Protein backbone atom coordinates (compact mmCIF):
# COMPACT_ATOMS: atom_id res chain seq x y z
CA UNK A 1 0.00 0.00 0.00
CA UNK A 2 1.40 3.38 -0.95
CA UNK A 3 1.50 6.48 1.13
CA UNK A 4 -1.16 8.24 -0.87
CA UNK A 5 -4.70 7.40 0.11
CA UNK A 6 -7.98 8.03 -1.54
CA UNK A 7 -10.62 9.99 0.29
CA UNK A 8 -14.28 9.79 0.90
CA UNK A 9 -16.16 13.00 1.61
CA UNK A 10 -15.78 13.99 5.23
CA UNK A 11 -18.64 12.97 7.49
CA UNK A 12 -18.00 15.93 9.72
CA UNK A 13 -20.28 18.94 9.75
CA UNK A 14 -20.07 21.15 6.72
CA UNK A 15 -18.86 24.65 7.09
CA UNK A 16 -21.93 26.86 6.89
CA UNK A 17 -20.34 29.68 4.95
CA UNK A 18 -18.36 27.57 2.56
CA UNK A 19 -19.85 24.39 1.18
CA UNK A 20 -16.72 23.59 -0.84
CA UNK A 21 -14.66 23.18 2.31
CA UNK A 22 -16.33 19.99 3.49
CA UNK A 23 -14.52 17.50 1.30
CA UNK A 24 -11.98 16.55 3.88
CA UNK A 25 -8.20 16.52 3.82
CA UNK A 26 -5.80 14.51 1.70
CA UNK A 27 -2.61 12.88 2.88
CA UNK A 28 -0.08 12.89 0.13
CA UNK A 29 3.62 12.75 -0.61
CA UNK A 30 4.08 16.28 -1.93
CA UNK A 31 6.96 17.29 -4.18
CA UNK A 32 8.97 20.40 -3.43
CA UNK A 33 8.64 22.74 -6.42
CA UNK A 34 10.61 25.63 -4.97
CA UNK A 35 11.93 26.90 -1.68
CA UNK A 36 13.32 30.35 -1.05
CA UNK A 37 14.02 32.75 1.78
CA UNK A 38 11.84 35.82 2.19
CA UNK A 39 12.87 38.19 4.95
CA UNK A 40 13.31 36.06 8.06
CA UNK A 41 11.01 33.37 6.66
CA UNK A 42 11.04 30.57 4.13
CA UNK A 43 8.47 30.27 1.34
CA UNK A 44 7.88 26.64 0.36
CA UNK A 45 5.93 25.68 -2.76
CA UNK A 46 4.68 22.09 -2.91
CA UNK A 47 2.98 20.08 -5.62
CA UNK A 48 0.21 18.29 -3.74
CA UNK A 49 -2.39 16.92 -6.17
CA UNK A 50 -5.97 17.68 -5.18
CA UNK A 51 -5.15 19.92 -2.24
CA UNK A 52 -5.40 23.31 -3.96
CA UNK A 53 -8.97 22.88 -5.18
CA UNK A 54 -10.14 21.88 -1.71
CA UNK A 55 -8.41 24.67 0.18
CA UNK A 56 -10.20 27.73 1.56
CA UNK A 57 -8.44 30.71 3.15
CA UNK A 58 -7.64 30.07 6.80
CA UNK A 59 -7.11 26.35 6.46
CA UNK A 60 -3.74 24.82 7.22
CA UNK A 61 -1.36 22.04 6.21
CA UNK A 62 0.38 19.62 8.59
CA UNK A 63 3.78 18.45 7.39
CA UNK A 64 5.71 15.43 8.63
CA UNK A 65 9.34 16.38 9.22
CA UNK A 66 12.57 14.42 9.23
CA UNK A 67 11.77 11.97 6.44
CA UNK A 68 10.91 8.27 6.77
CA UNK A 69 11.77 6.87 10.20
CA UNK A 70 12.11 10.37 11.63
CA UNK A 71 12.66 10.72 15.37
CA UNK A 72 10.44 13.82 15.23
CA UNK A 73 6.95 12.40 15.47
CA UNK A 74 4.79 15.48 15.62
CA UNK A 75 3.54 17.19 12.50
CA UNK A 76 4.28 20.86 11.97
CA UNK A 77 1.21 22.92 11.12
CA UNK A 78 1.33 25.98 8.87
CA UNK A 79 -1.46 28.10 7.49
CA UNK A 80 -1.75 27.79 3.75
CA UNK A 81 -0.57 30.86 1.86
CA UNK A 82 -1.48 30.56 -1.79
CA UNK A 83 -2.85 27.68 -3.79
CA UNK A 84 -3.01 27.17 -7.55
CA UNK A 85 -5.40 24.49 -8.77
CA UNK A 86 -3.95 24.65 -12.31
CA UNK A 87 -0.50 23.60 -11.17
CA UNK A 88 -1.74 21.67 -8.11
CA UNK A 89 0.56 23.71 -5.91
CA UNK A 90 0.27 24.90 -2.35
CA UNK A 91 2.48 27.48 -0.66
CA UNK A 92 3.36 27.74 3.00
CA UNK A 93 5.51 30.21 4.89
CA UNK A 94 7.49 29.28 7.96
CA UNK A 95 10.11 30.56 10.35
CA UNK A 96 12.98 28.31 11.41
CA UNK A 97 12.36 27.80 15.11
CA UNK A 98 13.61 24.32 15.92
CA UNK A 99 14.85 21.06 14.47
CA UNK A 100 11.67 20.35 12.52
CA UNK A 101 11.55 23.66 10.68
CA UNK A 102 15.33 23.52 10.19
CA UNK A 103 14.80 20.21 8.39
CA UNK A 104 12.08 21.75 6.23
CA UNK A 105 14.37 24.67 5.36
CA UNK A 106 16.91 22.20 3.94
CA UNK A 107 14.42 20.70 1.46
CA UNK A 108 15.33 21.14 -2.18
CA UNK A 109 13.24 21.06 -5.37
CA UNK A 110 12.31 17.48 -6.19
CA UNK A 111 12.38 16.34 -2.55
CA UNK A 112 9.28 14.74 -1.08
CA UNK A 113 7.45 15.71 2.10
CA UNK A 114 4.34 14.10 3.57
CA UNK A 115 1.51 16.62 3.76
CA UNK A 116 -1.98 16.40 5.24
CA UNK A 117 -4.15 19.24 3.94
CA UNK A 118 -6.36 21.16 3.88
CA UNK A 119 -7.17 20.96 7.57
CA UNK A 120 -9.40 22.99 9.85
CA UNK A 121 -12.24 25.43 9.35
CA UNK A 122 -11.61 28.37 7.03
CA UNK A 123 -12.53 32.00 7.53
CA UNK A 124 -16.23 32.63 7.13
CA UNK A 125 -17.11 35.13 4.45
CA UNK A 126 -19.76 37.86 4.74
CA UNK A 127 -23.02 37.28 2.87
CA UNK A 128 -23.16 40.92 1.72
CA UNK A 129 -20.48 43.30 0.40
CA UNK A 130 -18.78 44.50 3.57
CA UNK A 131 -15.83 46.68 4.41
CA UNK A 132 -13.29 44.36 6.05
CA UNK A 133 -10.01 44.82 7.87
CA UNK A 134 -7.49 41.98 7.67
CA UNK A 135 -4.89 42.15 10.44
CA UNK A 136 -1.74 40.06 10.41
CA UNK A 137 1.26 39.75 12.67
CA UNK A 138 4.52 38.51 11.15
CA UNK A 139 3.96 35.61 8.75
CA UNK A 140 0.37 35.49 10.00
CA UNK A 141 -0.23 37.40 6.79
CA UNK A 142 0.19 34.15 4.82
CA UNK A 143 -3.54 33.28 4.56
CA UNK A 144 -4.65 36.90 4.18
CA UNK A 145 -3.89 37.25 0.47
CA UNK A 146 -6.17 34.40 -0.55
CA UNK A 147 -8.78 35.71 1.86
CA UNK A 148 -8.50 39.21 0.36
CA UNK A 149 -9.10 37.81 -3.11
CA UNK A 150 -12.18 35.89 -1.96
CA UNK A 151 -13.57 38.95 -0.23
CA UNK A 152 -13.05 41.15 -3.26
CA UNK A 153 -14.80 38.57 -5.45
CA UNK A 154 -17.76 39.30 -3.18
CA UNK A 155 -17.36 43.05 -3.66
CA UNK A 156 -16.01 43.55 -0.16
CA UNK A 157 -13.55 46.36 0.50
CA UNK A 158 -10.29 44.97 1.88
CA UNK A 159 -8.03 46.93 4.22
CA UNK A 160 -4.86 45.11 5.09
CA UNK A 161 -2.85 45.82 8.23
CA UNK A 162 0.51 44.07 8.38
CA UNK A 163 2.60 44.32 11.51
CA UNK A 164 5.79 42.87 12.91
CA UNK A 165 8.60 43.64 15.35
CA UNK A 166 10.82 44.80 12.48
CA UNK A 167 10.91 44.93 8.69
CA UNK A 168 12.45 41.48 7.99
CA UNK A 169 9.63 39.89 10.00
CA UNK A 170 6.94 41.27 7.73
CA UNK A 171 5.69 38.95 5.02
CA UNK A 172 4.02 39.85 1.75
CA UNK A 173 4.18 43.64 1.84
CA UNK A 174 5.20 43.82 -1.81
CA UNK A 175 2.11 41.99 -3.05
CA UNK A 176 -0.26 43.58 -0.54
CA UNK A 177 -1.20 46.59 -2.67
CA UNK A 178 -2.44 44.30 -5.43
CA UNK A 179 -5.02 42.50 -3.25
CA UNK A 180 -6.19 45.31 -0.96
CA UNK A 181 -7.91 48.68 -1.16
CA UNK A 182 -5.53 50.01 1.46
CA UNK A 183 -2.39 48.71 3.14
CA UNK A 184 -1.10 49.82 6.52
CA UNK A 185 2.27 48.59 7.73
CA UNK A 186 3.39 48.83 11.35
CA UNK A 187 6.68 47.83 12.96
CA UNK A 188 7.49 48.01 16.64
CA UNK A 189 10.96 49.42 15.94
CA UNK A 190 9.73 51.82 13.25
CA UNK A 191 12.06 50.26 10.63
CA UNK A 192 9.24 50.58 8.09
CA UNK A 193 5.70 51.95 8.18
CA UNK A 194 4.11 53.28 11.33
CA UNK A 195 5.98 52.72 14.58
CA UNK A 196 3.88 50.67 16.95
CA UNK A 197 1.55 47.71 16.90
CA UNK A 198 -1.21 46.75 14.51
CA UNK A 199 -3.84 47.64 17.08
CA UNK A 200 -2.56 51.26 17.21
CA UNK A 201 -3.61 51.65 13.60
CA UNK A 202 -7.00 49.99 13.90
CA UNK A 203 -9.39 52.50 15.51
CA UNK A 204 -8.65 55.20 12.96
CA UNK A 205 -8.87 52.78 10.03
CA UNK A 206 -12.12 51.27 11.27
CA UNK A 207 -13.68 54.73 11.42
CA UNK A 208 -12.25 56.03 8.18
CA UNK A 209 -13.00 52.92 6.07
CA UNK A 210 -16.32 52.19 7.78
CA UNK A 211 -15.07 48.70 8.56
CA UNK A 212 -17.78 46.17 9.50
CA UNK A 213 -15.78 42.96 9.93
CA UNK A 214 -12.32 42.07 11.20
CA UNK A 215 -10.09 39.10 10.32
CA UNK A 216 -6.86 38.33 12.13
CA UNK A 217 -3.99 35.85 12.03
CA UNK A 218 -0.86 36.00 14.12
CA UNK A 219 0.44 35.47 17.65
CA UNK A 220 -2.11 34.90 20.44
CA UNK A 221 -1.39 38.25 22.12
CA UNK A 222 -2.09 40.08 18.86
CA UNK A 223 -5.29 38.11 18.23
CA UNK A 224 -6.51 38.94 21.70
CA UNK A 225 -5.78 42.64 21.16
CA UNK A 226 -7.50 42.67 17.76
CA UNK A 227 -10.54 40.85 19.16
CA UNK A 228 -10.71 43.47 21.93
CA UNK A 229 -10.57 46.39 19.49
CA UNK A 230 -13.20 44.73 17.28
CA UNK A 231 -15.49 44.15 20.25
CA UNK A 232 -15.12 47.77 21.35
CA UNK A 233 -16.20 48.85 17.87
CA UNK A 234 -19.01 46.30 17.82
CA UNK A 235 -17.46 44.41 14.89
CA UNK A 236 -17.49 40.64 14.42
CA UNK A 237 -13.96 39.27 14.33
CA UNK A 238 -12.55 36.01 12.99
CA UNK A 239 -9.23 35.00 14.45
CA UNK A 240 -6.98 32.19 13.19
CA UNK A 241 -5.11 30.87 16.23
CA UNK A 242 -1.66 29.34 16.47
CA UNK A 243 -1.89 26.58 19.07
CA UNK A 244 0.72 23.85 19.36
CA UNK A 245 -0.58 20.69 17.66
CA UNK A 246 0.63 17.11 17.62
CA UNK A 247 -1.56 15.59 14.90
CA UNK A 248 -3.48 18.43 13.22
CA UNK A 249 -6.36 16.09 12.34
CA UNK A 250 -8.43 16.07 15.53
CA UNK A 251 -7.36 12.92 17.34
CA UNK A 252 -4.74 13.96 19.89
CA UNK A 253 -6.57 16.65 21.94
CA UNK A 254 -3.43 18.70 22.57
CA UNK A 255 -4.34 21.91 20.70
CA UNK A 256 -7.31 22.90 22.84
CA UNK A 257 -8.31 26.30 24.11
CA UNK A 258 -11.34 27.52 26.05
CA UNK A 259 -14.07 28.54 23.59
CA UNK A 260 -17.74 29.36 24.14
CA UNK A 261 -20.03 27.20 22.01
CA UNK A 262 -23.39 27.92 20.39
CA UNK A 263 -25.07 26.81 23.61
CA UNK A 264 -23.19 29.45 25.60
CA UNK A 265 -21.07 26.88 27.43
CA UNK A 266 -17.28 26.90 27.52
CA UNK A 267 -15.45 23.82 26.33
CA UNK A 268 -11.80 22.94 25.79
CA UNK A 269 -12.04 23.08 22.00
CA UNK A 270 -9.66 21.66 19.41
CA UNK A 271 -8.09 24.38 17.30
CA UNK A 272 -7.27 21.89 14.53
CA UNK A 273 -10.81 20.82 13.64
CA UNK A 274 -13.09 23.36 15.35
CA UNK A 275 -10.61 26.13 14.45
CA UNK A 276 -8.07 27.37 13.64
CA UNK A 277 -10.52 30.19 12.87
CA UNK A 278 -12.72 31.21 15.78
CA UNK A 279 -15.06 34.12 16.31
CA UNK A 280 -13.00 36.48 18.45
CA UNK A 281 -15.70 36.97 21.08
CA UNK A 282 -16.03 33.20 21.63
CA UNK A 283 -12.44 32.66 22.79
CA UNK A 284 -11.45 33.12 26.44
CA UNK A 285 -8.21 34.82 25.44
CA UNK A 286 -7.16 35.63 29.00
CA UNK A 287 -7.66 32.01 30.09
CA UNK A 288 -5.54 30.25 27.45
CA UNK A 289 -3.24 27.86 29.29
CA UNK A 290 -5.80 27.31 32.05
CA UNK A 291 -9.10 25.51 32.49
CA UNK A 292 -11.64 28.23 33.33
CA UNK A 293 -13.95 27.23 36.19
CA UNK A 294 -17.04 27.39 33.99
CA UNK A 295 -15.61 24.93 31.43
CA UNK A 296 -17.69 21.82 30.85
CA UNK A 297 -16.03 19.06 32.88
CA UNK A 298 -13.65 21.40 34.74
CA UNK A 299 -12.24 20.02 37.99
CA UNK A 300 -14.20 22.62 39.96
CA UNK A 301 -17.36 21.64 38.13
CA UNK A 302 -17.14 18.13 39.56
CA UNK A 303 -15.54 16.71 36.44
CA UNK A 304 -13.01 14.72 38.42
Amino acid at each position, binding site marked *: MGHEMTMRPSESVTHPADAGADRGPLQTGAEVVSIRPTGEYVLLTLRAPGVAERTRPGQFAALAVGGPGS*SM*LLRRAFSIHRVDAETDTVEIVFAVHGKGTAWLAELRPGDSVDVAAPLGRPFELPEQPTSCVLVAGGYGSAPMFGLAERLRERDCAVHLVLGAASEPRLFGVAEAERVADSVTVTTEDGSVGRRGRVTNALPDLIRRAQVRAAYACGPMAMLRAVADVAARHDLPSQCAVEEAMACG*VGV*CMTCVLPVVGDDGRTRMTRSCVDGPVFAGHRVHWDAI*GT*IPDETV*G*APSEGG*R
Partner: protein
Amino acid sequence: MSDVDLTTDLAGLALPNPVMTASGCAAAGRELDQFFDVAELGAVVTKSIMRDPRSGRPTPRMAETPSGMLNSIGLQGPGIDAFLADDLPWLVQRGARTVVSIAGSSVGEYAELAGRVGKSAGVSAIEVNISCPNVENRGLVFACDPTQASTVIAAVRPEVPAEIPVFAKLSPDVTDIVTIAESVMSAGATGLSMINTLLGIAIDPDTLRPVLGGVTGGLSGPAIRPVALRCVWQVHAAMPDVPIIGIGGIRTGFDALEFLLAGATAVQVGTVIFHDPGAPMRVVAGLAGELAARGFGKPAEVVGLAHRGGDVA
Protein backbone atom coordinates in the same frame (compact mmCIF):
# COMPACT_ATOMS: atom_id res chain seq x y z
CA MET B 1 1.53 -11.41 0.18
CA SER B 2 -1.65 -12.96 -1.14
CA ASP B 3 -1.00 -16.21 0.70
CA VAL B 4 -0.98 -14.56 4.14
CA ASP B 5 -4.28 -14.77 6.00
CA LEU B 6 -4.31 -12.02 8.62
CA THR B 7 -7.54 -13.10 10.32
CA THR B 8 -7.03 -13.32 14.04
CA ASP B 9 -8.88 -14.93 16.92
CA LEU B 10 -8.41 -12.64 19.91
CA ALA B 11 -10.00 -14.26 22.96
CA GLY B 12 -12.89 -15.42 20.79
CA LEU B 13 -13.18 -12.19 18.81
CA ALA B 14 -12.87 -12.76 15.09
CA LEU B 15 -10.80 -9.93 13.62
CA PRO B 16 -9.88 -9.44 9.94
CA ASN B 17 -6.36 -8.55 11.07
CA PRO B 18 -4.60 -8.11 14.41
CA VAL B 19 -4.05 -4.32 14.10
CA MET B 20 -6.10 -1.84 16.14
CA THR B 21 -5.77 1.81 17.01
CA ALA B 22 -4.55 2.56 20.52
CA SER B 23 -6.81 4.36 22.95
CA GLY B 24 -6.40 8.13 22.93
CA CYS B 25 -4.76 8.14 19.51
CA ALA B 26 -7.82 7.78 17.30
CA ALA B 27 -10.58 9.65 19.20
CA ALA B 28 -13.69 7.63 18.28
CA GLY B 29 -12.63 6.83 14.72
CA ARG B 30 -14.42 9.57 12.82
CA GLU B 31 -11.43 11.79 12.12
CA LEU B 32 -9.24 8.94 10.85
CA ASP B 33 -12.04 7.69 8.61
CA GLN B 34 -11.17 10.64 6.36
CA PHE B 35 -7.81 8.97 5.70
CA PHE B 36 -8.74 5.29 5.51
CA ASP B 37 -11.75 3.05 6.05
CA VAL B 38 -11.80 2.37 9.80
CA ALA B 39 -13.90 -0.74 9.19
CA GLU B 40 -10.81 -2.33 7.61
CA LEU B 41 -8.93 -2.23 10.92
CA GLY B 42 -8.86 -5.16 13.28
CA ALA B 43 -10.71 -2.84 15.62
CA VAL B 44 -11.00 0.78 16.67
CA VAL B 45 -10.16 1.29 20.34
CA THR B 46 -11.88 4.45 21.56
CA LYS B 47 -10.40 7.18 23.67
CA SER B 48 -11.08 6.32 27.32
CA ILE B 49 -14.63 7.23 28.29
CA MET B 50 -15.48 8.45 31.76
CA ARG B 51 -18.89 8.85 33.39
CA ASP B 52 -18.98 12.65 33.28
CA PRO B 53 -17.74 15.17 30.74
CA ARG B 54 -14.19 16.12 31.55
CA SER B 55 -12.16 19.15 30.49
CA GLY B 56 -8.73 17.56 30.81
CA ARG B 57 -5.60 19.39 31.90
CA PRO B 58 -4.35 22.86 30.96
CA THR B 59 -2.15 23.43 27.92
CA PRO B 60 0.62 22.92 26.95
CA ARG B 61 -0.41 19.30 26.77
CA MET B 62 2.42 17.84 24.75
CA ALA B 63 6.16 17.91 24.27
CA GLU B 64 8.08 16.22 21.50
CA THR B 65 10.87 13.98 22.78
CA PRO B 66 13.37 11.83 20.86
CA SER B 67 11.29 9.28 18.90
CA GLY B 68 8.36 9.97 21.16
CA MET B 69 6.24 12.50 22.93
CA LEU B 70 4.89 13.37 26.33
CA ASN B 71 1.21 14.10 26.69
CA SER B 72 -0.82 15.40 29.58
CA ILE B 73 -4.30 15.47 28.07
CA GLY B 74 -5.94 14.30 31.28
CA LEU B 75 -8.72 12.18 29.78
CA GLN B 76 -10.63 15.04 28.18
CA GLY B 77 -13.92 13.66 26.92
CA PRO B 78 -17.65 14.14 26.52
CA GLY B 79 -18.76 11.59 29.12
CA ILE B 80 -20.56 8.30 28.65
CA ASP B 81 -23.97 9.74 27.71
CA ALA B 82 -22.63 11.66 24.72
CA PHE B 83 -20.38 8.74 23.76
CA LEU B 84 -23.27 6.28 23.66
CA ALA B 85 -25.52 8.77 21.87
CA ASP B 86 -23.09 9.96 19.18
CA ASP B 87 -19.81 8.10 18.91
CA LEU B 88 -20.67 4.45 19.37
CA PRO B 89 -23.63 4.50 16.93
CA TRP B 90 -21.38 6.08 14.31
CA LEU B 91 -18.77 3.32 14.69
CA VAL B 92 -21.45 0.64 14.52
CA GLN B 93 -23.03 2.18 11.44
CA ARG B 94 -19.60 2.35 9.77
CA GLY B 95 -19.18 -1.37 10.41
CA ALA B 96 -16.10 -0.93 12.58
CA ARG B 97 -15.34 -3.43 15.31
CA THR B 98 -15.26 -1.33 18.43
CA VAL B 99 -13.29 -1.80 21.62
CA VAL B 100 -14.54 0.70 24.17
CA SER B 101 -11.93 1.97 26.61
CA ILE B 102 -13.32 3.00 29.98
CA ALA B 103 -11.68 4.96 32.79
CA GLY B 104 -13.00 5.75 36.23
CA SER B 105 -11.85 7.63 39.27
CA SER B 106 -13.43 5.04 41.56
CA VAL B 107 -14.16 1.33 41.44
CA GLY B 108 -17.87 2.14 41.34
CA GLU B 109 -17.42 4.38 38.30
CA TYR B 110 -15.62 1.60 36.41
CA ALA B 111 -18.42 -0.84 37.24
CA GLU B 112 -21.13 1.61 36.18
CA LEU B 113 -19.36 2.37 32.88
CA ALA B 114 -18.79 -1.32 32.18
CA GLY B 115 -22.47 -2.03 32.75
CA ARG B 116 -23.62 0.69 30.39
CA VAL B 117 -21.11 -0.14 27.67
CA GLY B 118 -21.73 -3.88 28.04
CA LYS B 119 -25.45 -3.37 27.42
CA SER B 120 -24.86 -1.34 24.26
CA ALA B 121 -25.16 -2.91 20.85
CA GLY B 122 -22.08 -3.26 18.69
CA VAL B 123 -19.35 -3.41 21.33
CA SER B 124 -16.70 -6.02 20.49
CA ALA B 125 -14.72 -5.73 23.71
CA ILE B 126 -14.02 -3.49 26.68
CA GLU B 127 -10.57 -2.23 27.56
CA VAL B 128 -10.28 -1.12 31.16
CA ASN B 129 -7.84 1.76 31.41
CA ILE B 130 -6.51 1.40 34.92
CA SER B 131 -3.19 2.93 33.97
CA CYS B 132 -3.62 6.52 32.71
CA PRO B 133 -0.78 8.48 34.33
CA ASN B 134 -2.49 11.85 33.87
CA VAL B 135 -4.46 11.96 37.06
CA GLU B 136 -3.99 14.37 39.93
CA ASN B 137 -3.44 11.65 42.47
CA ARG B 138 -0.87 9.01 41.55
CA GLY B 139 -2.60 6.80 44.13
CA LEU B 140 -5.49 6.59 41.64
CA VAL B 141 -3.39 4.76 39.07
CA PHE B 142 -5.03 1.45 39.89
CA ALA B 143 -2.60 -0.50 37.71
CA CYS B 144 0.29 0.40 40.02
CA ASP B 145 -1.07 -1.79 42.80
CA PRO B 146 -2.07 -5.45 42.36
CA THR B 147 -4.92 -5.25 44.89
CA GLN B 148 -6.45 -2.08 43.47
CA ALA B 149 -6.01 -3.36 39.92
CA SER B 150 -7.78 -6.61 40.67
CA THR B 151 -10.54 -4.83 42.61
CA VAL B 152 -11.42 -2.80 39.51
CA ILE B 153 -11.44 -5.83 37.22
CA ALA B 154 -13.47 -7.89 39.70
CA ALA B 155 -16.06 -5.07 39.79
CA VAL B 156 -16.16 -4.71 36.01
CA ARG B 157 -16.38 -8.36 34.92
CA PRO B 158 -19.84 -9.20 36.33
CA GLU B 159 -21.30 -6.06 34.70
CA VAL B 160 -20.31 -7.21 31.21
CA PRO B 161 -21.96 -10.04 29.26
CA ALA B 162 -19.76 -13.13 29.28
CA GLU B 163 -19.28 -13.10 25.50
CA ILE B 164 -17.66 -9.65 25.60
CA PRO B 165 -13.94 -9.88 26.41
CA VAL B 166 -12.53 -7.54 29.05
CA PHE B 167 -8.93 -6.42 28.59
CA ALA B 168 -7.04 -4.73 31.41
CA LYS B 169 -4.62 -2.07 30.22
CA LEU B 170 -1.48 -2.12 32.30
CA SER B 171 1.17 0.42 33.20
CA PRO B 172 4.87 -0.32 32.78
CA ASP B 173 5.60 1.96 35.76
CA VAL B 174 5.60 -0.91 38.24
CA THR B 175 8.26 -3.03 39.90
CA ASP B 176 6.95 -6.32 38.56
CA ILE B 177 4.36 -6.27 35.78
CA VAL B 178 3.85 -10.03 36.02
CA THR B 179 2.40 -9.63 39.53
CA ILE B 180 -0.11 -7.07 38.27
CA ALA B 181 -0.93 -9.20 35.25
CA GLU B 182 -1.59 -12.25 37.42
CA SER B 183 -3.81 -10.28 39.79
CA VAL B 184 -6.07 -8.88 37.06
CA MET B 185 -6.28 -12.24 35.31
CA SER B 186 -7.38 -13.94 38.52
CA ALA B 187 -9.94 -11.17 39.00
CA GLY B 188 -11.60 -12.18 35.74
CA ALA B 189 -9.90 -10.26 32.94
CA THR B 190 -10.05 -12.02 29.56
CA GLY B 191 -6.72 -10.61 28.46
CA LEU B 192 -4.22 -7.79 28.79
CA SER B 193 -3.38 -4.64 26.87
CA MET B 194 0.26 -3.68 27.34
CA ILE B 195 1.47 -1.00 27.75
CA ASN B 196 0.13 2.41 28.66
CA THR B 197 2.51 5.39 28.68
CA LEU B 198 5.45 5.87 31.04
CA LEU B 199 5.44 8.87 33.35
CA GLY B 200 7.89 11.56 32.25
CA ILE B 201 8.85 15.23 32.40
CA ALA B 202 10.39 17.68 29.92
CA ILE B 203 11.82 21.09 30.88
CA ASP B 204 11.55 24.19 28.70
CA PRO B 205 14.92 25.76 27.79
CA ASP B 206 13.49 29.29 27.91
CA THR B 207 11.31 29.24 31.02
CA LEU B 208 13.39 26.62 32.86
CA ARG B 209 10.08 25.19 34.04
CA PRO B 210 8.30 21.96 33.04
CA VAL B 211 6.94 22.18 29.48
CA LEU B 212 3.62 20.51 30.27
CA GLY B 213 0.80 22.37 31.97
CA GLY B 214 0.25 19.23 34.01
CA VAL B 215 4.01 19.07 34.86
CA THR B 216 4.21 15.29 34.29
CA GLY B 217 2.96 13.46 31.23
CA GLY B 218 2.82 10.06 29.60
CA LEU B 219 5.71 9.08 27.31
CA SER B 220 4.74 7.22 24.15
CA GLY B 221 6.04 6.51 20.68
CA PRO B 222 8.87 4.35 19.26
CA ALA B 223 11.09 5.40 22.19
CA ILE B 224 9.14 3.09 24.52
CA ARG B 225 8.89 0.09 22.20
CA PRO B 226 11.66 -1.96 23.85
CA VAL B 227 10.01 -1.44 27.25
CA ALA B 228 6.65 -2.53 25.88
CA LEU B 229 8.18 -5.58 24.23
CA ARG B 230 9.90 -6.53 27.48
CA CYS B 231 6.56 -6.31 29.34
CA VAL B 232 4.83 -8.50 26.75
CA TRP B 233 7.74 -10.92 26.84
CA GLN B 234 7.72 -11.27 30.64
CA VAL B 235 3.97 -11.75 30.91
CA HIS B 236 3.78 -14.20 28.01
CA ALA B 237 6.60 -16.19 29.58
CA ALA B 238 4.72 -16.37 32.86
CA MET B 239 1.23 -16.94 31.39
CA PRO B 240 1.54 -18.25 27.83
CA ASP B 241 -2.21 -18.79 27.39
CA VAL B 242 -3.28 -15.23 28.24
CA PRO B 243 -4.34 -13.17 25.20
CA ILE B 244 -2.14 -10.07 25.01
CA ILE B 245 -2.58 -6.93 22.92
CA GLY B 246 0.86 -5.41 22.39
CA ILE B 247 1.10 -1.60 22.41
CA GLY B 248 4.04 0.76 22.35
CA GLY B 249 5.60 2.69 19.52
CA ILE B 250 4.55 0.46 16.64
CA ARG B 251 5.37 2.18 13.38
CA THR B 252 6.06 -0.55 10.81
CA GLY B 253 4.95 -4.03 9.91
CA PHE B 254 8.07 -5.44 11.52
CA ASP B 255 7.37 -3.56 14.76
CA ALA B 256 3.99 -5.33 14.87
CA LEU B 257 5.64 -8.67 14.08
CA GLU B 258 8.08 -8.10 16.97
CA PHE B 259 5.18 -7.88 19.41
CA LEU B 260 3.63 -11.07 18.06
CA LEU B 261 6.97 -12.86 18.37
CA ALA B 262 7.21 -11.70 22.00
CA GLY B 263 3.78 -13.15 22.76
CA ALA B 264 1.07 -10.71 21.71
CA THR B 265 -1.94 -11.98 19.74
CA ALA B 266 -2.85 -8.52 18.45
CA VAL B 267 -1.33 -5.03 18.46
CA GLN B 268 -2.38 -1.41 18.68
CA VAL B 269 -0.90 1.51 16.75
CA GLY B 270 -0.91 4.73 18.75
CA THR B 271 1.31 7.78 18.75
CA VAL B 272 2.60 7.11 15.25
CA ILE B 273 -0.91 8.02 14.03
CA PHE B 274 -0.09 11.63 14.96
CA HIS B 275 2.88 11.43 12.60
CA ASP B 276 1.01 9.57 9.89
CA PRO B 277 -2.78 9.29 10.09
CA GLY B 278 -2.61 6.46 7.56
CA ALA B 279 -0.21 4.45 9.75
CA PRO B 280 -2.60 1.75 11.00
CA MET B 281 -3.39 0.44 7.52
CA ARG B 282 0.26 0.75 6.53
CA VAL B 283 1.09 -1.50 9.49
CA VAL B 284 -1.57 -4.00 8.36
CA ALA B 285 0.00 -4.22 4.91
CA GLY B 286 3.51 -4.22 6.35
CA LEU B 287 2.75 -7.06 8.74
CA ALA B 288 1.38 -9.18 5.89
CA GLY B 289 4.59 -8.52 3.98
CA GLU B 290 6.84 -9.38 6.93
CA LEU B 291 4.97 -12.66 7.53
CA ALA B 292 5.05 -13.57 3.85
CA ALA B 293 8.74 -12.79 3.55
CA ARG B 294 9.42 -15.34 6.30
CA GLY B 295 7.09 -17.98 4.95
CA PHE B 296 4.36 -17.68 7.56
CA GLY B 297 0.72 -18.01 6.59
CA LYS B 298 -1.05 -16.57 9.65
CA PRO B 299 -0.22 -14.25 12.56
CA ALA B 300 -1.15 -17.00 15.01
CA GLU B 301 1.82 -19.06 13.80
CA VAL B 302 4.31 -16.57 15.23
CA VAL B 303 2.69 -15.66 18.58
CA GLY B 304 5.37 -16.20 21.21
CA LEU B 305 7.74 -17.75 18.70
CA ALA B 306 10.72 -15.78 20.01
CA HIS B 307 10.44 -17.68 23.31
CA ARG B 308 10.85 -21.03 21.66
CA GLY B 309 14.11 -22.48 20.53
CA GLY B 310 14.86 -24.01 17.16
CA ASP B 311 15.84 -22.75 13.77
CA VAL B 312 13.98 -20.21 11.71
CA ALA B 313 12.24 -21.93 8.82
